């Protein structure tokens, strides 16, 4: 049975299911049991159900606690760690990159590392330069890690279950603007395989490869493009590492055009990898130069007055596609876009702060 759930409910359900199935799964993170909002709702009630050993708070010690998670994984536990902002995890890069990512390989295959680290990214409400960075590229660069960015509630659940059941460190990135979106979610156990992309919308004229929240903006853009007779195919990569290169290449070979869309910095970001991959592998199929739509290479400013020019949205994607076709830029007005909410909140219900 499939029902419509919110993204946060899908994460909650996946966590609940994994904990019920396997007593070695536990959840930890700052304020996880104490937060009355239950970490965007994803952890609500879980401590009551599974007890304080399995659903736990922790000291403000991100690096050490990552080590603790790693150590517990080595002796058979399956920790899920959650950071409410990816920036906090920067304190733990040593443990994640030197230790978690290498451990299985460097010990010649003797040590499994079943570890999930949920990290939240996002934007809006003036969170500013240290609370709204999108640092997926740093982790996706590292062999030995797996990095997923689910967009739909369906994938949020299926990828989280897959991540918990995986014997490797999985970085699971949640965009804060997704937690309240709705979508169909099957009941019970299922997994979405890590390393498989998804065609979010088929099309024949151009391939848009997008990550996380930017998939939604890409779908909006695809709707707008139809009016000009342009059929965009939107690929939701889901996994940044391993990357489903075959899926992307097949699409680009069909459409002959590529736009990579990522809500992070441009240079050395994920969008660069997509362009490199395509240029390297199927250069001959391209009808025009591939393009990127990303944030500019700047810190993320706090004031909405500047943030609105920092984060890309549908209009930028429309123009990205148009530029691969040699068409001139259009404005939001020309596209008839009217924003019902301020640009710095995910939806009408949100009244800040994050």
């Amino acid at each position: 049975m499939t029902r419509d759930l919110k993204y946060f409910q899908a994460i909650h359900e996946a966590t609940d299911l994994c904990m019920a199935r396997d007593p070695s799964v536990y959840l930890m993170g700052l304020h996880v049991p104490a937060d009355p909002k239950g970490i965007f709702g994803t952890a609500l009630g879980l401590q009551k159900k599974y007890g304080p050993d399995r659903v736990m708070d922790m000291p403000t010690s991100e690096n050490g606690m990552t080590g603790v998670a790693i150590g517990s994984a080595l002796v058979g536990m399956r920790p899920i760690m959650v950071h409410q902002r990816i920036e906090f995890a920067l304190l733990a890069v040593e443990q994640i990159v030197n230790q978690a990512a290498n451990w299985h390989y460097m010990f010649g295959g003797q040590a499994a590392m079943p570890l999930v680290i949920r990290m939240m990214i996002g934007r809006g409400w003036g969170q500013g330069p240290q609370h709204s960075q999108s640092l997926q590229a740093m982790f996706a660069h590292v062999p030995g890690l797996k990095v997923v960015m689910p967009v739909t509630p369906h994938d949020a659940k299926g990828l989280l279950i897959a991540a918990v059941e995986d014997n490797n460190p999985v970085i699971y990135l949640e965009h804060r603007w997704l937690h309240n979106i709705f979508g169909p979610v099957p009941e019970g156990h299922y997994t979405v395989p890590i390393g498989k992309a998804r065609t979010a919308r088929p099309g024949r004229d151009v391939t848009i490869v997008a990550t996380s929240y930017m998939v939604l903006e890409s779908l909006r853009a695809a709707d707008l493009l139809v009016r000009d007779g342009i059929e965009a195919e939107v690929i939701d990569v889901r996994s940044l590492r391993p990357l489903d290169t075959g899926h992307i290449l097949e699409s680009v070979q069909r459409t002959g055009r590529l736009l990579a869309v990522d809500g992070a910095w441009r240079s050395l970001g994920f969008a660069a990898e997509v362009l490199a991959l395509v240029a390297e592998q199927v250069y001959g199929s391209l009808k025009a130069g591939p393009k990127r739509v990303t944030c500019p290479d700047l810190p993320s400013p706090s004031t909405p007055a500047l943030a609105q020019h920092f984060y890309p949205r549908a209009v930028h994607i429309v123009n990205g596609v148009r530029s691969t076709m040699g068409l001139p830029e259009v404005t939001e007005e020309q596209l008839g876009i009217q924003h019902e909410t301020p640009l710095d909140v995910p939806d009408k219900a949100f009244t800040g702060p994050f």
Partner: protein
Amino acid sequence: MDPVTPRDLYGRMLRIRLVEEKIAELYPEQQMRCPVHLSIGQEAVAVGACAALAIKDYAFSTHRSHAHYLAKGGNLKAMLGELYGRVTGCCLGKGGSMHLIDRSAGFLGAVPIVGSTIPIGVGAAFGTLLRKERRVTLVFLGDGATEEGVFHEAVNFAVLKRLPVVFVCENNFFSVYSSLDVRQPPAREIYEMARGYGLESHQGDGNDVEAVYGLTKAAVEKARTGGGPTFLEFKTYRWREHCGPHYDNHVGYRSEQEFEEWKARCPVTRLKQQLLQQGLLAQEDLDGIEAALIREIETAVVFAQSSPFPEPQLLGAHLYAP
């Protein structure tokens, strides 16, 4: 430095209280579009500690920085401008509430990553020592910040080099919704752990501004005369929710009763009553102080609200210093 009078301390605390209450009042209008962490209830630590500093001395702060900024002499208009995201803000709107700075007041910066200004403050102290300046650096930190490894590293270095730094730990018992008992061993006092590093370490009443002032003053004088660092822990209490303008005693992570007990120990009221009792100030003096502050704050709010937003071109500015 002029001697600091109880009247000064009172005025400074009240100013911060009134500013933050004004923020709490206006925040629901959704014009200040950034997270805010209010220090209402904790004013005595900010004011008592900063009163012990000279203007040329430095201070660093955290996500909860309004009180520290104002107590150190930061510009009120620039702070409100920043909260309103305006170009008149102390960071031109780029930082928001969690990134206050006023270099002319010696307030060198606040950032919201817990613990991260601790080594930076120690580094500033180290820099002043290398430059043979007789400045003291004061680092504000919360109880939660003492759990970060970087606290350990910074304190070790400060002790090793006998740096002119004073650590002022505001222990309000909580890190967001998490009480100390899920984060630190029971019955282990933070100032005792700090003492293990080999530096002077004291605990004081964080709701008694004169006690804070006294302990900090001694630490600052010691630091200035080459005596090295001191760690000070002040227990106090945040009245409002961790982030945002509301009260949240009903949501379950702490009790209304605990809140009421701490509210009864309000640092502002406490000093006010003392001043009245000791006859240092009359009710009309107090009224005058308050009225002047309200006028100042109103003006600052109007200033901020009527300031322009930064122009789009500012987005690309300041990536690199020239």
